[in-house]
Structures are given as structure tokens and as C-alpha cells.
């Protein structure tokens, strides 16, 4: 049995395991878990252990969801759950906050920080910044020019129409003035950041990816 001493609220091992499994599987599937959605795991009678649970939940307790003490109880349960997750050796839970302040969780073993960051940006619909951050990162890190089709794949999931619209907006926004197009000889389009790659270098890398790598298998 896991517990927190401050609130004296107990989280059963069974519930903790269920929550861990849920976070893991959701992360494996490429999604973040909204913290508030975990309340479903904390509802009676699932929440209570056999020892502590009343034979039948009092009617007042099950119907008085808006009572302040009930709200406090739920918060205490959530606090206890998060503390139990933090203390667990079975999972390393990481947290991100979206633009609206909601917290999201993921399992570090199943999802990388890089991927979680992309998913969060998609959730926030910060597409222009996401595209720019991705292109700059790839131009600097690998280095490589970024094939524009990347943004139609998971986890970006933009439609071609959305992507073209975004790229059009980007071209008129000075914030993204360092982002440039380059094209391989087969017509495939790539983006790169002038902060990290010269136009010539970017073009040569695009040509390698789209054409020459296939000729040098």
C-alpha cells in the first residue's frame, strides 16, 4: 500500500499499477496522458481498499460531488497518486504543461523528451514554431535538410493542405527568416535553417537523401 503522510490518503498498489500501465501504454502509443484524466482511477469503489471501503458508499458521498470537502478529497487523492508515482521504482514519470496550464504525463521509458515535446506542440497547435524548431534542430544536430513530408507523418499529422498553408505563412513572418527551401534534383522539397547550414550544404544533403543515397545503397 502506498501512502502520503501529509494527507494521510492511501493509494492501493492495484490502482498504482493500473495507472502505471495506463501511462506506459499511452506513451507507447505516442500520446500524452492528461493528469486530470487520471481521476477515473481514483473513483469509489475502485479507490478504496477492502479494509477501508464501506460495505456500501453512503448516498450523500456519491452524490455530493460539488461539496468542498469532496473536492479537497479528490485533490488529496491526486496528490497522493502523484507522490506514489514519483516514489515508484516501476516508472519514471515526466510532466509537461500545455499553454492552458494543463499538466500532461508520459513515461520516460516509453517516450523520449523529444517526442513528448513534439506531441505537446501539436496539442498546443503551435505549428509554425514546431516546424521551425524541428528544422533548426535538424539543421544543427544531424546535420540535415528536413524533408517537408516529415510534417505529414506522426506525430505531426498535418494534412498537405495545412502544411502548405503553414509554410506560406512562415515565408512572410520575419521570425522564421532563417528558414529556407532547397530542392533535390528529383523535385523533392526540403527546409533548412541558414543559422546552421549554408544553402549549398543544405542542397547537397537534400540531394543525398532524395537521390544519391538510393544510387549508393
Amino acid at each position: 500500500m502506498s501512502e502520503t503522510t501529509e494527507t494521510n490518503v492511501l493509494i492501493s498498489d492495484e490502482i498504482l499499477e493500473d495507472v502505471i500501465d495506463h501511462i506506459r501504454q499511452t506513451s507507447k502509443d505516442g500520446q500524452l496522458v492528461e493528469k486530470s484524466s487520471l481521476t477515473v482511477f481514483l473513483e469509489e469503489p475502485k479507490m478504496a481498499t477492502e479494509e477501508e471501503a464501506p460495505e456500501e458508499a453512503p448516498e450523500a458521498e456519491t452524490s455530493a460531488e460539488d461539496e468542498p470537502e469532496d473536492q479537497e478529497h479528490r485533490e488529496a487523492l491526486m496528490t497522493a497518486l502523484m507522490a506514489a508515482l514519483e516514489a515508484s521504482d516501476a516508472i519514471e514519470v515526466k510532466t509537461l504543461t500545455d499553454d492552458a496550464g494543463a499538466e500532461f504525463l508520459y513515461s520516460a521509458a516509453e517516450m523520449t523528451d523529444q517526442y513528448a515535446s513534439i506531441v505537446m506542440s501539436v496539442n498546443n497547435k503551435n505549428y509554425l514554431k514546431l516546424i521551425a524548431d524541428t528544422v533548426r534542430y535538424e539543421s544543427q544536430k544531424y546535420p540535415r535538410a528536413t524533408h517537408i513530408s516529415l510534417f505529414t507523418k506522426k506525430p505531426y499529422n498535418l494534412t498537405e493542405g495545412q502544411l502548405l498553408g503553414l509554410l506560406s505563412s512562415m515565408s512572410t513572418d520575419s521570425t522564421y527568416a532563417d528558414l529556407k527551401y532547397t530542392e533535390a534534383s528529383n523535385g523533392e522539397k526540403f527546409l533548412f535553417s541558414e543559422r546552421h547550414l549554408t544553402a549549398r550544404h543544405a542542397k547537397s544533403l537534400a540531394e543525398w537523401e532524395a537521390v544519391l543515397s538510393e544510387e549508393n545503397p
Partner: protein
Amino acid sequence: MSNYGWTGKILRVNLSNESVSIDDTSKYKEYIGGMGIGYKIMADEVPVGTKAYDPENKLVFAAGPLTGAGIPMSSRTNITGLSPTNPSNLVADSHMGGNFAAMMKFAGYDAIIVEGKASSPVWLNIQDDEVTLESANNVWGTGIYNTTAVINSIAGKEASVAAIGQAGENMVNLSVIMNGTSHSAGGHGGVMGSKNLKAIAIKGTGSVEMAGTGKEWEELNKYMLEELVGANNNHVVPSTPQPWAEYHNERSRWTAREDLYWGAAEPPIETGICAAGDINRIGYRTDKAIFDLGPLAEKYTVRMGGCQSCPIRCHSQIKMPQLKEYGVSEYAENTCVGYSGPNGVMIKGSKDQFEEGDARILPRVLGSQLTDDYGVWCNYGMIGDDFKYAYNNGILKEVLPADEYNSIPWDLLEAGDPAFLVDFYRRIALKEGEFSKLGMGTYWVAKEWNYGDDFWDGAEDGTGSKIWSRLGFPRHHSSETAGQVGATLNCMFNRDAQCHTHVNLTGSGLPIEVQKKVIADVYAIGSEDALDAPNDYTPANEAKAKFAKWSIIRNVLHDSLTLCNWMWPMTASPLKERNYIGDTAIEAKFMNLVTGEDYTEEELDFAAERIFQLHRALTTMQMGSKNMREDHDDICGWVFDKDPDVEAFTAGTNKLDRDDMKLAMTMFYKEMGWDEETGIPTQATLDKFGLNDIADKMSSMGLLA
């Protein structure tokens, strides 16, 4: 020599007098196995000056101590013999996967030496200790598919059959030996044909004895599969962003993902996400069908196949009913250049024939069917470039008799119809007319048809050539791969360099800063300076010379153990918690587990270097060269003259600088213990590796530096 790993026996078959005998493997222990045994036998038994098609030439089919012992990616057959494709008929190796090597070990042999020449076509039937020569009259003149089927019906369906097609029979230089009807060894098919040997069938019912316990074997395998192995070419990141992966790279062969199917399987099978560490899904990681053939291939993919004892399934098995329109089976199986080679023959491009997008897949799968059945080799795709130069420069019109020229369906070629390939490969394999000289290989056809300097050196702007050496072999992960490293090692063999040690890292998909840390961790290199960012090269340095040497030595080691250098070494890892650093000592760990010997990583590399020193000495003697730098290691001009508007070492070009490359070669010679001017092994170096007899021979020929 222990009784573990090695079987202890080498089968010697003399086709001239139809005799069979057994040699003891132990005398080759210093040469490990596979390629090492092959070179040593060539050095001891084949006189300098022998030509590839002389009966005195030998073919050595050899495996190493790790093959057949259940070690991942270990069913490689190394075939050694003089090669007909280069002007001096220098010694070379061809390699095939499949299950031939493991079956040879199970039958009780580390190697098979084929010598002499049969008086009429035969095939060799090996059933454990029973070895017989059978008449091949019933299969001579037929393709590899039929030959394999007929011989399997006699030798048993379990037998592994290594056969040649009509190309090999006709001593087409560009021909293959193939087992499993898709695992081909390019370059020695004609030599087998010159001996009137149509096929070798082996059925073995034994096993390879191992010194270690089953538990130790299981633990080491588990460690490797969980922590070290990636996808094909040991690419260690997926091709698409995936939750588990910090990095991704579109050109990675780790193509498995959600919603990707083996679409022609019944029912279709989803590859799904195959995360690092999940050893039960490694077989799904590499969907090579879509990688080699494009997205349309998904619906035609039955499954991915591969070699004995290999978790990486890199051969796509395709069912495409449209193929029947060309008079061939609807099934095809191959990988990589087995597909892209025939596609390169379609020099005017390909157009869709039956559905949108099939221009990408049809010439590749149809071409693979034709080449696999006829047994034609593409010289790492160079046959297409040889053809392209002759066609585009009007040479064919000049050298072919008019009726022959007019009989070729140029309309199909111009229309992008892959039906052209049916005609093309028939002429090559059956040696029909002047056109079939394309099957002689680059050096010979260029000489016969008087190709211009621009063929070798590229056009004035440096473009238009893929040939690496004037000895006739093309680039194969050369200057575009780690600059001077790829360039140096491309000069060191007597055919296209089949070395993947370096490209498996540069193509791993990892960012350059991670790759630098990985390579710096290799004991034999120890410096991040060994590697440059792609197309952003720096001048030659000692670390690059060490990287080139280690790449070659490991390649040779793998071909001797025998392991697949298309996967090994495990330089990088897919695991972030290992900082993506692999384990280059794991060959030694497996070696010790299997043989009970006590090798260090360094000792194995030393043994491999002995083998490569012998290769260099054999090459020097066969060429009669007093200056290998000039006679053998020369590089075609386009490598230095491409991108004429910029200097070498400018970001955005992978051109090299002549003076710098000369320095790079000198540094490499120094690492190898060769004369720094001539590139010939010194007496001291040969002595160091126990090659005193070779030193004496070279000295007597006046070739020793």
C-alpha cells in the same frame, strides 16, 4: 586447435581426376576461416600468373568458426579465387548469405576447395561424408531456378544448392554463384562455369560443437539482441519519428512503423513499432520492400526473408502477378543492389505500366528475376553505367553489326518499358553477339569499345561517372562516405569494396556529434577527428587513416569468422542509456564462447590484419607491381574534379583534393606498415605477421620494398 567452432576438415575436390580428399583445418588456424583460409590456399597452391579461367585457378568456399553455431548474422559463405573482371585476374572474394555456409558446417566441413576442370558438366553432391560428382547434363543450359529445383529433387529438399546460371556456364565475367535462389556471390560464377561445375549441393545432419554452455550462449545472444543490434546495416534509429526513439532518419532501414503491412501475406501482417530492446520483434524492423522498391511494394510484400541464424530479415519476398506478363514467375526475392542493379539498366528511365507508381517497382523485381535465373552479376550496378556510356555516346552503333543493332528493342528502352530487360539479360547471359561484351565487366568492355577518358574521369564538370578505379571496379561507399576513409578503403580490394564497417556508422541515423563519440570509443581509433559531418570534410589526419584501417580489418575479420559485414561490427547501439555506443569486442566474446580459445579484440584484429597483409602481397605479386600506389591505388579523376566551382573542404561538396588524398594514402600505408611511397608491404611487416615465406617470394620477384 580446439574441436569447437571449426569442424576440423576441409573437403578438396579435384574435378580433373574426380578425386575427393580431406585436409586438416588446423594448419589454417592463424587465418581464422572463411576469407583467411581462401587467401592462404591461393598463396600456397595457385601459381602467380594463373588466369581466372585456367584449371589451375581454384575456388575456395569457406566459412569460419562462428558459422553454424547460432551466432546472429553468421551464415556467410566466402568464395575466394582469381577474378576475371580485373586486368591481372587478381584474387578476389565474393560472398553469399542464405544457408549454404551453415549447411557446409553441419556436413562437417570448414571449407570446400574446388580445383581442376571436369571433362563434362557435373554437380557436386555432398551428403555429410558421402561426396559424389553427378552428371549435370540434365540442368546444363538452364537457369538457377530450374537447376536448384532439379538438384533439390535429387539431393533432398533440405539440401542447400549453390548454382550458376547460363551466364556462369558461358564464362560471362559478370556472373554469380547463388544459393537459395536469391543469395548471390558476384564475380566467380564464370570461374565455376570454366570448371564445368554447375552446382554444389550440401546436406549436413551434424552440428557445430561449442565450448561454452547453452546458458552462456543464450546470455550473450540476449545481450547482443537487446543492446546492440539495430536494423539492416545496423541502422540504430527508426525511419520515422517514434515515441521510443530520440532520433530518426528517413534513410534508415529501420522502417517498421504503425500501419505498415506485409500486404500480400494472408492475412496481412502489420510490422508495427519495433522498439529497441524488444528482441521478439527484431524480425519486423527492416521492411526492405518499401525501402528498396517504394511505397507501392507494401501491398505486394508477402514477408521479409533472410539468412540462416539472422534476426535481420533483409530480403523482401514479393508476389506481383503482373510479372507473369513478362514470361516469368510472379514471385521475386532480393535486396538492395539485387533490385537497383537491374533498374540502372533502364538508362532512359521507367514509366508506369499497369498502375500508378509501378515504374519504381517493376524494373527492379523483373530485373531481379532475370538476373537471378540467368546468374548475371551487375558489378555493383556498374553494368548499367557501362551500357549508358556506350549508348549515349553512339558507341553501340559503331561496334555492333547493323543487323544486331537493329534487332535490339530500343523502342522499349526509350519508352521506359521494363520488357527491355528481358532482351538485355538474355543477350548478356547467352553471350549473344557483340552486345554481350557488356558482361565482360567495366575494364574489358571499356577497352574493347575504346571508352574515352570522360568515362573514367567524368565530364568536364566532374559529373557522369561512378567508376572508382581504372582496374574496372566501381565506387562502393567511397568518398561520399566519411571522405578519405571511404576513398582509401575503396582502393584496397580488387573489385568493388564490399566494406560496410564505416558506412554502417555513418548511415546509422545518429547525429554527427553522437557518431563522433561512438567512433572515438573504438580502441583502434580513439579520436573524434576520424569522422567529418556529411559533405563538410576536413583534411586528412591520422585518425582517419586508423578508421580506414580498422574498417578494412574488421571487414576481413567478419569474412573470416564468418559474420555479415552488412551488419557487423556492433559499433553503435540503438540504446540511449549506452550513449549509443556499441560493443566492438563482442566478436571476440562470441569467438571465445564458441571455440573455447581466449582471444582479445586486439588479437582478433591482428589475425585479420595478417589476412589482409597476405591479400596485399598476393595482389602485388600477381600485378608484378613495384609501385602499388600508382599501379593499383589510383583513383579516377571525377572524385577530385566534381563541383568545379568550389574547392575541396567546402561545406556542400564531397569532392576530395589530390594532394590531400595522396597524404591520406601515405598515412594509411604507414598504419599498415607498408612502404610509404609505393604502398608495398615491407619485409618487417610481413615478418611481423609470420608471412616470411611470402616475403621471400616477393623478394625473389624483386618486389619487396
